């Protein structure tokens, strides 16, 4: 390890109760889970302008010593450079598999979350727009929301998701969860005994989907169909988050829905 992990390491995300959206919360929870698994203490700080502070424009980002690193991929590499790694025990083929599954989660689950938040008109009107701009006065809140929406819709069009209907997106989510469930099987973690960054990423997304109240329950129902995935989320929550008030997602009851969104 080059330097020891400082005491005042901080993770920045948007405001938890009023502002943060489904996809950002999932990413943030994934990073928190990863750091907990590595046994590295971190404080979660909520700021309204977290997105703008981040070096890559995406949340969450961590501030460690005098370095700022954002997004799970670079954070994993940064932590590895400090001497902590969860995937050292894997052989080459397993590492390839782990990377492939992480891409699957990013490709399907994250994109589906973004689609639901920004391309589904009902959700956009009722949930996303009010939440995204909530710390700012009118008209700034509407302008920022529309700007972000335009950006996300452009990206969806470029990758071919703009033409999909909500049912197709939910079917993709189902396929992804099916694949994850098959891969997990009856093991405690994806690579048997020890958790890796893949477990952190999957936990972040699935837990957020399960505990977030949206217009309809369809998204969380898709995940609930797979009992080993819900058991997996419960297990990680118990092991790594119970008793830590800094992450209030643990305090909420495990299987009852916590109203993260309005």
């Amino acid at each position, binding site marked *: 390890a080059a330097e020891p992990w400082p005491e005042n390491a901080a993770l920045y995300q948007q405001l938890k109760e009023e502002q943060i959206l489904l996809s950002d919360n999932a990413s943030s929870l994934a990073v928190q889970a990863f750091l907990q698994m590595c046994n590295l203490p971190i404080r979660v700080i909520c700021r309204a302008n977290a997105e703008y502070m981040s070096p890559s424009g995406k949340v969450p980002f961590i501030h460690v010593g005098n370095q700022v690193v954002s997004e799970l991929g670079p954070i994993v590499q940064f932590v590895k450079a400090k001497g902590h790694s969860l995937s050292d025990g894997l052989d080459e*083929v397993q590492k390839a598999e782990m990377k*492939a599954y992480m*891409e699957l989660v*990013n490709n399907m689950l994250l994109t589906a979350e973004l689609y639901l938040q920004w391309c589904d008109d009902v959700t956009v009107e009722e949930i996303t727009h009010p939440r995204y701009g909530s710390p700012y006065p009118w008209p700034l809140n509407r302008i920022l929301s529309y700007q972000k929406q335009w950006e996300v819709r452009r*990206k969806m069009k470029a990758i071919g998701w703009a033409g999909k209907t909500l049912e197709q997106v939910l079917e993709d989510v189902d396929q992804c969860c099916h694949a994850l469930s098959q891969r997990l099987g009856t093991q405690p973690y994806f690579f048997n005994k020890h958790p890796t960054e893949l477990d952190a990423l999957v936990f972040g997304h699935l837990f957020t989907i399960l505990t977030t109240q949206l217009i309809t329950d369809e998204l969380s129902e898709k995940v609930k169909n797979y009992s080993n995935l819900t058991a997996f989320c419960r297990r990680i929550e118990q092991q790594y988050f119970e008793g830590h008030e800094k992450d209030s997602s643990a305090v909420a009851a495990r299987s009852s829905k916590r109203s993260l969104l309005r």
Partner: protein
Amino acid sequence: MAAPMELSCWGGDWGLPSLHPESLTVMAYAKFSGAPLIVNTINNSWRATKGNLPVLVSEDIVISQPAKILNFLRKQKYNADYDLSAKQGADTLAYIALLEEKLLPALLHTFWIEAENYCSVTKPWFASKIAFPLSLYLPGKMSREALNRILLTKGGPPLYSLTEVEAQIYRDAKECLNLLSKRLGTSQFFFGDTPTTLDAFVFGFLAPIYKVCFPRVQLQEHLKQLPNLCRFCDDILTCYFRLTVSGHSPAGQDTADANLQKLTQLVNKESNLIEKMDDNLRKSPQHPPRKLTTLKLAAGGEESSPMSRLSP
């Protein structure tokens, strides 16, 4: 199932049945699963070049994306994944996501955005397959779409310039190739001895990189350092597509190209000399002016019509 299924897709060259990764994936899957497809390659006619190929038409159903086409074929009982376990099916999805995220941007870049490659190989080839005047517009549109896709998905901060984005996507692509090579190891196909959906997708993405002769070939050179992936592509081409790989091995094709280039250079020199002589003759008053055709040096690797270019 009795109705014939027709696939419209881009044609091929350089020993491949198709240059377009998605078309190639669908054709490979059809061969693996034994589906009887009638393949119509686009060739300069007005029909069906909407740019969204490959397209499968069966009775009245029109399906356009590779994943959907493969699903349709599976429903018609042409299933190449029959023997896979559930975990292997999950692995398939994961590796396909890896290919799309890490390898596809670099593939698109090599074909459509790298200026030398685009101008000397991709654009003329695609333009020659599309009817005029659509051939003036469609390659440009495909290039713009590719650039858009790369910039929107990979181009955010902290990468601010196109060169930084390019460096990053090629790094990702090389890492992806390494991962694929490790996963394949020494086995014939990714899941044992019979090819499956994953083999179709990997083949569809790798074969164009492997075979098409571009001026700028950093990805191809990296691929050639992974012999098991090269062997994988060659095996599928010889076993399932019955193409003789133009009878050349890559090294043989390179020497053929080098010879071709030397020949064209010699002929060009001769024609320059003849032109000079002709100029001299023209300047002297007694001879009428004669027209000469000048030769253009064919870009290396365009085997499609080398001989016709050389005829004076």
